[in-house]
């Protein structure tokens, strides 16, 4: 047990910190998660800079153009990115979900074709999993893929797709067997977002911004070589994707929470906080440290045994609820000024925006209800509710 960076980790962190200080573009720093994050050219340029500096795909194997670095480097990378309030690589879906899934299930030609452009931010990916009728219950997917002359013809609707309006490719979960139900009969496809019949419509959310999109597929022809895994084997492939979605994500979330708690403390210093508020500030600082060291425990287990520790499964659940409390506490400290927004609000409306945005945290990437089911059934071994 040693909670300090090793000499090698410390050197990596120091070099990265300096690089971020010098390279994060002013207009993208301290992003609210809003419009700037989805500005195509600026984000692509930033992502390309990350790639050129060797920070894209740190843990990807070298043979696929990655850094071949240990998970601790990825953890340090995510911590430092959040502390610098740097925007993420625009290819987060490609780097964190599509890429690892292609590495696990893809044919050699697919690996050769798709992986390198993800790292260089030359091609952006989005995820087509959720549907209006299939959210937490992903096995209810109905988007159809009908075989036709060396192609699949795709019809249906996907929803909550971040980056879809910028994306070149989509990892799409479809039902290829119309007579199947639930987990059988699903096929995982790689779909060209520029193909005829693909239409993307932005979804305006609670904050007034459009972070997510709906994607409509109408008679979209997808060549059979774009299957990932086997026909009918889509569920297993999708599980690989979701495993990666929740993988080292915990580190990014903890680091984001640390920034948020630091800002909360600065706010309390600036505006004053009463005794009850101070108690809650201390609670949130404690919670943030607890998430940090829980992530460390899980990552250490991963490094030693190849499997993340079970305690890692709670990070996203705890973070999402903590972020909701922290942002609401900030509004309380702001007092009547909390009612103002944007330019008329203190700090440019930062807290008002963050508080509204935080309501999505317990819904996206696994609802808190689903995550509690996962802890109950897979970690505690309680009988399955379904």
């Amino acid at each position, binding site marked *: 047990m040693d909670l300090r960076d090793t000499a090698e980790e410390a050197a990596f962190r120091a070099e990265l910190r300096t690089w971020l200080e010098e390279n994060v573009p002013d207009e993208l720093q301290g992003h609210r998660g809003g419009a700037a994050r989805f500005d195509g050219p600026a984000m692509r340029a930033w992502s390309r800079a990350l790639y050129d500096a060797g920070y894209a795909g740190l843990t990807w194997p070298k043979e696929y153009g990655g850094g071949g670095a240990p998970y601790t480097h990825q953890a340090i990378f995510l911590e430092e990115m959040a502390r610098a309030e740097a925007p993420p690589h625009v290819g987060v879906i490609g780097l964190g979900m599509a890429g690892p899934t292609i590495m696990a299930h893809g044919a050699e030609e697919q690996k050769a074709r798709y992986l390198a452009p993800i790292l260089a931010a030359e091609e952006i990916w989005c995820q087509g999993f959720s549907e209006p009728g299939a959210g937490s219950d992903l096995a209810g997917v109905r988007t159809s893929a009908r075989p036709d002359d060396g192609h699949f013809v795709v019809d249906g609707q996907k929803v909550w797709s971040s980056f879809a309006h910028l994306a070149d490719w989509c990892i799409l979960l479809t039902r290829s067997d119309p007579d199947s139900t639930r987990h059988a009969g699903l096929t995982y496809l790689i779909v060209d977002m520029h193909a005829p019949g693909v239409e993307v419509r932005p979804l305006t959310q609670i904050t007034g911004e459009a972070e997510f999109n709906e994607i409509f597929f109408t008679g979209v022809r997808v060549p059979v070589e774009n299957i990932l895994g086997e026909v009918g084997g889509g569920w297993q492939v999708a599980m690989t994707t979701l495993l990666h979605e929740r993988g080292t994500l915990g580190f990014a979330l903890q680091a984001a929470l640390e920034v948020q708690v630091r800002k909360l403390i600065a706010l309390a210093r600036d505006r004053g906080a009463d005794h009850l508020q101070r108690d809650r500030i201390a609670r949130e600082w404690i919670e943030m440290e607890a998430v940090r060291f829980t992530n460390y425990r899980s990552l*250490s287990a991963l490094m030693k045994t190849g499997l993340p520790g079970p305690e890692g499964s709670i990070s996203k659940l705890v973070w999402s609820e903590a972020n909701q409390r922290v942002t609401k506490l900030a509004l309380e400290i702001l007092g009547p000024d909390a009612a103002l927004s944007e330019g008329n609000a203190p*700090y440019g409306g930062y807290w008002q925006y963050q508080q509204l945005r935080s309501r999505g945290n317990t819904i996206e990437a696994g609802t808190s209800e689903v995550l509690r089911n996962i802890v*109950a059934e897979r970690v505690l071994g309680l009988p399955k509710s379904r």
Partner: protein
Amino acid sequence: MDFTFTPEQEALREQAREFLAANPEPSWTQLAELGWTGVSIAEQDGGAGLTFVEEAVLFEELGRALYRGPYFSTVALTLPALPDDLRAEVAAGETSWTLALGPLVPDLDTADRVAIVGGDGIYELEGEERELLTTTDETRPLGVVRGGEPGRRLADASVLIEIEARAQTALALEACGVARRALEYAIEYASTREQFGKKIGIYQAVSHPLADAYTRLELCRSLALWAAWCVANENPQAWTRPSLAAAAAKSSAAESGVAVCETSIQVLGGIGFTWEHELHRLYKRALGIESFGASGTTLRAEIAAALLNENPEGTPVVVPAPVSVEQGG
């Protein structure tokens, strides 16, 4: 960064769990024979020359087993104040100690000797009268001392900062051990007990509180192990203010220990409310841990003062990089 136990530390945990299961009321001599009383005492004084991290493993297991005896009061409370010759006696199992930090002193029935804080020093108390008081938690007796004279001066009072950190961390670890055992009872019960034709663990009204209990427990355990690592690897003699890690661990684990026990009692229903089941004893130990020393509210007030930079003595160790709130807009 490595936040795992070594194979030796894991072996120590296994040994402790097996031994305490077979010997629920071990004597001080037995603990000394296992090497537990001298874990962090130097080898030349007859100890193992290990660290507080190994002691942390034992505190967690001793909490789980509801151990009754002077281990906490000797190893967590008094050891930092003891000179080498007296440490050697502890390592050899010849003496156990307790420290009168406040009016209520733990383990007066089993500890051989008593230390007191007086002025700028910690002294051995001689010729005192001891009176045991009735307590809700029977596994950690409390009492008062009357009369007596300060004898040998053991240490400068500056060692109290380390003692406080060790005590808070040890209590946090005990609370984790207690909560783990209580949660295991609840999981076992929810996995076998049937109502309305189904195992009750199927109902999310039961399973989600248990998932939350597990979540609280793991978060607290992370804090407690962090605090233990700080005690073992930082230089507590150089600390100029209380350890925030230990305060965070104690405030959080003590409250969560109680809450996890309460969830477990609820899941076990009527059985959980009986004298016969062990749960009430775990619950009472958790309550005893919570009331020992500073409360969660007090500790959080200290943490808030440090975070908001209102402690003029302290250096702001918490938030290394300045962040401007304006950056967010």
